[in-house]
């Protein structure tokens, strides 16, 4: 004689359906039939409630779309009100955050043209730059080149103190022949 159905066999029945042995046994065993019914009952209750509920939802006039009325509903202006509200709130927030920084930048930009440099002064500056024999950035190199020459190139470039200092360092060095 076959043994009673185990919990695993009842689960298998529910998931995969009954095997031929199981079905024959349940027909002849009231205890197993009761156990199976007990396992099925909550699932049946759940199904019947959910199906009845969804049928109620389908039958509800507010939810019953006639043709593509549902799509029209989605395009209804009122459905977009929350989105517009959110967009407006974000725009206000952005304005509040960005506004003060723009205000701070505006005065500095406005001040710039207050003291215009006259054309004459500008031309003098350009002349001075062009007439220099050595650019400022190259001046230290000319100092180095002029170490042993009698001329004082530093005077040309307008750095006499630097040239004098170099000469004094040279003089204080001990001679190799000594």
């Amino acid at each position, binding site marked *: 004689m076959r043994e009673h159905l185990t919990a695993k066999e009842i*689960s298998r029945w529910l998931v995969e359906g009954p095997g031929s042995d199981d079905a024959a046994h349940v027909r002849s065993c009231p205890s197993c039939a009761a156990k199976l019914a007990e396992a099925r009952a909550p699932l049946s*209750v759940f199904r019947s*409630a959910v199906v009845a*509920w*969804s049928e109620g*939802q*389908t039958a509800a006039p507010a939810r019953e779309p006639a043709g*593509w009325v549902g799509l029209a509903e989605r395009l209804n202006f009122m459905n977009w009100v929350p989105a517009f509200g959110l967009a407006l709130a974000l725009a206000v927030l952005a304005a509040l955050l960005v506004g003060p920084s723009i205000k701070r930048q505006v005065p500095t930009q406005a001040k710039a043209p207050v003291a215009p440099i006259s054309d004459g002064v500008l031309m003098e500056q350009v002349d001075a730059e062009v007439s220099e024999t050595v650019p400022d950035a190259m001046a230290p190199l000319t100092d180095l080149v002029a170490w042993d020459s009698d001329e004082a190139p530093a005077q040309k470039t307008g750095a006499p103190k630097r040239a004098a200092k170099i000469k004094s360092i040279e003089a204080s060095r001990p001679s190799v022949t000594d």
Partner: protein
Amino acid sequence: MGYAAVNEMAMSGEVAPSVATSMGLDDIEGVMRLYRGRILRYALFAVRDRDAAETITQDCFLKAYRARESFRGDCSLSTWLMQIAVNLVRDYARSKQFQFWKRAQTAAVDVSEVAEFLPHKGSSAESRLLAREQLKAVWQAVDKLSKMQREVFLLRFVEEMDLLEIAAVMGMKESTVKSHLYRALNSVRTKVSAGTDGSQT
């Protein structure tokens, strides 16, 4: 066969695929009347939000109507629609909108609302109370399941689809469907028996 009879059969999941297929997707209103309940309840339990489920259901029929030329009847119309619904639910779950609304749960359906729909003709007060408790226990257990387990559980025990059909809808192997189902069922049965024991003591 009358239209009302076909409708009734579809509601109970008994409609023959050939009957539904012969209706043709050109009559989308008829198809919606037949399958809307099924798609809606699947979407509802998958996304847990009434408004989102309504949107998914509408999108499902819209998509089916647009792609009606590609439906060649390889599977039943019901399975085909359910495949579309499953994909829409997946797309929705991936979207940020879902992440937001998942937290908000503004339109979530309550178990007590569904319990109002329990059939109680000719049943005693005691059996009605037991049914409510069983519904609540299963509902809570389903709520705790993983997304995949919940989906296969609903397709098997609410839509009463067979394993091969579920595998086709979910795009899984039959063995994977079985594995998810066994885990889901064990969780639900454990929860139900704990709930029943707790109510008896």
